[in-house]
Structure formats: C-alpha cells, structure tokens
C-alpha cells in the first residue's frame, strides 16, 4: 500500500496527461494541473515556512552562533507576512490590490527587497570578471575555442570593437568583429544550441519513461 499506491498514481496521472495532448476534449487537463500545482504549493509552503520559523527559533532558543541574525530573519519574515496578509496601509483595505504603491507590502518591497535583489544580481559582474581571469584558460583546444568565441562577442558588441576593425574593406566586411559576432550567433551557436536541445528532449523522454514505469523511484523515498 505504502509503495504501490504512489507508483500507481505516478503512472496513471502521467499517462493521462500524455494522452490529453492528443484528445481535444482533454486538452485543458495540463492547464488544470498547473492550477492544482499552485494550490498544492501554497499548502507546501506551510511546511517550508514552518521549517524556516522552527530552524531560526531553535537557533535563538539554544543561542547557537550567529543567533542574532536569526532574530533579524524572524522579524523580517513576520513583518512582511503581516503587511501582506492583512494588507496593512493599503488604501483599498483587505480587498485592495496587493501591488498598490502606498501599501506597506509594496513599500517594503520597493525599498528593501528590490535593492537587495538588484545588488545580489549585480554581484554577477564581479564574479563574471573573476571567473574570466581564473577559469578562462586556453588549457586545450576546446577551451581555446570557447575563449575565442567569447572574445569576438565581447568586442563585437561595443563601439570599441567596431572601431578596432572598421579599417577592413567592405568586401570583406564579414571579418569586421561586429559582423563576425552576428555570424557566430546565427551559425555555429545555433548548431550547438540545437544539438543541446535535441539531446535534452530525448533525455527527458527517457527519464520520464523511467519515472512513469516505476524504474526510477528514489524521489518517493523508495530505494530498492
């Protein structure tokens, strides 16, 4: 019972959804699934959010290292929950639009969450540079090719690159860096992307079948 029912559910639901693609009256089932999923995800969040609360409360209670930060997390979490669930400061009251500019929820988003997110995102610029310095090595032929392609694109998309090769006569204009960059995007890049995509598609077919047939079942906590 504990083992067979989930396997049956997986097989049954999966087959049903595969079939629905070919049966017009059932076409909306895929859409229905996304609605179910959204509803299940909210319930699951009670587990996730509960876990977040428990971990940080435990940390505070047992005064483990860095427990002070746990208090900050807890306060931030609860304040945001209160502001959003009760729609505090929203001119429309509880039936108001969640994204209304004057609501606390939106003010917290605009002034705290959004700068934090943007900055975290901007860290990428630094990491991209350090990765280029550290890992972008012409170790072998493969890496050298990667490097050259990246070089051409990097230079080809700035005025600097245009300047660099603008002396090349028009009949050989393909060799100008910006044009070379465009050619790489529509030629070799397209081919590589395609090979990767076809592979991924087949990989998914094979993995999905393993799951539906119950051959792959580790995700159910069933390791036999």
């Amino acid at each position, binding site marked *: 019972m504990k083992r067979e029912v989930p396997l049956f559910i997986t097989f049954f639901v999966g087959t049903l959804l595969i079939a629905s693609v070919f049966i017009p009256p059932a076409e909306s089932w895929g859409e229905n699934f996304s609605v179910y999923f959204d509803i299940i995800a909210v319930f699951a969040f009670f587990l996730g959010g509960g876990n977040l609360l428990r971990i940080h409360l435990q940390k505070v209670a047992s005064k483990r290292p860095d427990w002070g930060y746990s208090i900050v997390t807890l306060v931030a979490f609860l304040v945001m929950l209160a502001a959003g669930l009760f729609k505090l400061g929203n001119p429309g009251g509880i039936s108001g639009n969640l994204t209304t500019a004057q609501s606390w929820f939106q003010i917290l988003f605009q002034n705290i969450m959004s700068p934090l997110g943007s900055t975290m995102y901007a860290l990428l610029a630094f*990491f991209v540079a350090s990765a280029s310095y550290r890992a972008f090595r012409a170790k072998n032929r493969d890496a050298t090719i990667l490097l050259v392609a990246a070089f051409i694109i990097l230079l080809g998309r700035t005025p600097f690159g245009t300047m660099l090769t603008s002396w090349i006569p028009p009949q050989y204009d393909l060799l100008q860096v910006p044009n070379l960059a465009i050619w790489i995007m529509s030629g070799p890049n397209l081919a590589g992307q395609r090979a990767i995509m*076809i592979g991924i598609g087949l990989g998914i077919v094979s993995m999905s079948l393993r799951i539906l047939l119950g051959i792959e079942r580790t995700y159910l906590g069933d390791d036999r």
Partner: protein
Amino acid sequence: MLFRVAIAFACLFIIAGVAGQPAGDTALAVQQTIAPVTSLIATNHEYDNGTGIDLIWVPSIDDRLAPSRVTGYEVWRSVVGGSGSRIAELPAGANKFTDEQCSRESTYVYSVVAISVAGNAVSISTAPIQPAREWINLHRLNLLAIAFLVSAAVIYFIQSARSGKKLFVRKIAGLDAVDDAIGRATEMGRPILFIPGIQDMDDVQTIAAITILGRVSRVVADYDTKIKMPVSRSLVMTAARETIKASYMAAGRPDAYNDDMVSYVTDEQFGYVAAVDGIMVREKPATCFYLGAFFAESLILAETGNSVGAIQIAGTAMPAQIPFFVAACDFALIGEELFAASAYLSNEPKQLGSLKGQDVGKAVALVVIVVGTMAATIGSAWDVTFMNQLWSALKVVFQTN
C-alpha cells in the same frame, strides 16, 4: 428657386475643385460607399473540443485597391434564436478569423462588416453552423507516432537489459568523480552541499536532481559524511527529505538521518543565493553539487564555491547557464547528461538500458538531418522532383502543432 440652383452650382464647384486637387480622394470617399466582403464561409475549427469556428472571406474590392478605403472589419455573430453581437475588430486586409468562444450546444450565424469613413457594408450572413468536437487530434498523429517509436525503443532496451544482455555505456566524466568527491569531504571532515536548482517539483530538471540526490545520499550515508541541502521550494524540501531518509534506511542507519539536513530558505532567487553564499563561506563545504534548473545564480554559486576551495560538480539543461558551469566548475554535466546521470549512477542494467534507448532517438535525428539536408539541397538546386517530394514529406512528418 434661384437660391437653390445657386447653392447646387456652388456645391458642384466645390466638389470639382476639391476633386481636382491631390487630396481629392477624401471628398470622393464621402460620396461613395464601399463594397462588402464576399464569399464569407464558416467552417468548423478542426480538432478542438467543439469551441471554435473558422471564418474566411474575400476582402472588400475597395480594400484591394490602393489606397484602400476600408479602415477595418468587424465580425458579428448571432446565436440562432438569440441576439447578435460584435465579437472582433480586425485591421484592413484581414481575410480570416477564428472564433474560439463558441459553445457546442449553440448554432451560430456570422457576418462581416467592412468599415470605411463613408459608411459600412454588411456582408451576406453565413449559413447556420454548430461547432463539433473531435475525439482525436489527427494533426498530432505524427507526433504520437514518432514519440511512440522512441518510447518503444527505450522500453525495449530496458527489457532486454533486464533479461541480462550486456550494455556498453560510455564514461561520463563528472559522474565518475562523484564517489571521489564524497570521499574527499569525508576525509576532510567537511560537509557536502547539494543545490537542486531553484525551480519547483513541476520542473523535470528538479526531478532529475532529486533522483541523482538519491544516489549521492546513498554514498553519503555509507561514508557517514555530513550533507547540507538548502532549498528554495517547500515541495523540493519535502521530496528531498523523503529521498535522503530512504537512503539512510537502505544503508541501515536510519538513526543517523536528521530532517535538518534539508532546510527551506526562501523562494526568492537572489535571497536564496545570498543565503547559500553565506552557508558556503561559513561552513566551507568540501564538495558542492549544483544539479537542476539554474538561472543567473549559477556563476555566483560556482565562484563562491571555488573561493572556499570546494570540488564542484554541476549539471543543468539551461543552455544559457552551461558555459558558466563548464568554465567555473571542476566537472559539468551538459544538458542531456543531467537526465542520464541518475541512470548512470545507479549502474542498474535496466536504467542503463534506457540510455541506449534514447540513443535510438538520436540516431533517427542524425539520419533525418543527413537525408533531409541532402534531399533539400539536391531538390532545390537541381530541381529534382523526387528529392523535393522527400524533403517536403520529411517536413510534414516532423511538423508539430
């Protein structure tokens, strides 16, 4: 009387004067009405659940003359035994429309109105039509057939592997390193970090990550290494706990399992990354796994992991992120290899059989690309009928929608 004649003359002069000027069109337009659309036909929209009706018509003759005097079209629908209403406005030049808001129980009559500055022209109404529903989408028969073929190949090889046939599977570099990487963490007494991407369980890459977690955690349980798995989705947390717990049970050490091995952080992409970065620099994991669906965070994770000296094994099917993993990690699984990983790691014949099955799909793709490209080139360069037929046949077979 004289007064009226005078006005009539004045009008004539004005009209003649205006018409003589380049802008004369507008004055003429005021005078002439336009022709309605013709040959309006309504047909049932094929292969749907009985909700669609296709309309086609020949645009008004005044629309086809340049400059067009038609400014647009309106589609009107009336239910037989009910009132009519305007259901769509279309730009000039339009000659078809699909009404997708029909009900199987009703019968409809359509008409199309051509609109112009001077006035509108209503077409003749269509015959009453009732949408029908179909039970099988024949347009997708080719998809069904080819998907079935590939699936059958996968299942065939799984079966033949089950019956003991020996199968060869090439080495996948990143996966051969898994055991060593876990062993290293054990020796160093540092934890292993497992990041299953930032998507939820409704993404097949996350499911692939969780199946790989099953294999990894089995080794972890055997070696008694510490594993840490912060996740960004509650459902992934639940699934990952089940998976790790089962591995510990299978290793005969259920008491060593602890729910805190997996913890939920936040759904927010960069909030999650900020926390994972923090965990990395504070706990200094010896080995990091990044497997699943990754976006911009891939490089932040890989670079931070590198700065704490971790061995990094990554894999994703996100084409835009693969380069960062290739450049910044020690081993990277590229696209398809992510989905093959759990089968490869399991080392079970039937799982490996499925890999051979998907190779059949690739073989088909290769053959079609070679034959198709040759047929298309020969056909269009030297106009060979048979080649052109072959080319268009292949196109039809591989078309989807």
